[in-house]
């Protein structure tokens, strides 16, 4: 990612979110995707029973924010390297923010849905 074209905060936050995601994604992967009990743990009843505690919901709210920011900021970094016109750059920036907010909103709604089903949070 080119820091001159992209701005300090975008570059800095990309690295900070990356470091946090190393921990977050590892926990998420080993719990839901690659642990011995992974197949059961992804189905509805198991999710409601085991993963709807306030701690897990909070963990996934943070993980979702990190991953959405990191992914879309990464795309923004790639686009910045294409030397697009100021207008196109502005358009992509707004579009990515819009997509990010919508994606985070849907993800958050899914988490809240599960939390309500459990009667927790």
């Amino acid at each position, binding site marked *: 990612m080119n820091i001159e074209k992209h701005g300090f905060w975008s570059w800095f936050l990309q690295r900070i979110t990356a470091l946090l995601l190393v921990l977050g994604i590892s926990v998420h992967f080993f719990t839901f995707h690659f642990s011995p009990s992974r197949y059961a743990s992804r*189905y509805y009843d198991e999710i409601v029973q085991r993963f709807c505690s306030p701690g897990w919901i909070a963990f996934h709210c943070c993980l979702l924010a990190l*991953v959405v920011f990191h992914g*879309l900021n*990464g795309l923004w970094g*790639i686009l910045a390297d294409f*030397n697009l016109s100021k207008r196109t750059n502005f358009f992509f920036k707004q579009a990515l923010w819009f997509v990010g907010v919508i*994606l985070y909103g*849907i993800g958050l709604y*899914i988490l809240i849905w599960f939390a309500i089903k459990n009667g927790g949070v």
Partner: protein
Amino acid sequence: MAGFSQKLKEGFKDLAKNRNPGMLSFWIHRVTGVAVTIFLFLHIFTLSSVFRGKDAYDYAISKFDTKSGYIFQYVLLLAVAIHLLNGIRITVADFWGLTRIQKKLLWISLLVFLLIAAVGVKTVLW
């Protein structure tokens, strides 16, 4: 858009000309980054089936419990692992000024990646 495809062509030319591990890792990092971001949309889309009820959600999840689903998840693991390890290498080199040993860090990343890939065969595909 013409400038966009021109820049992309230049990038491929650069890769063809400079066939070194650093350039290759740069491209792999970008391609896996874009792929994993696209997967994030698919992930949210799959989970959103919960709005249609328990059965619809379990049905959507069960699609990943097939042979092709396991292969897909293994490829996902490889993409995330290579992006994550290369990302750690970039961050460590950036923050701690270790650009001089970045090649060595690349080989260490590759070694850890191969280890994860091997363990993944047993954990995901077996």
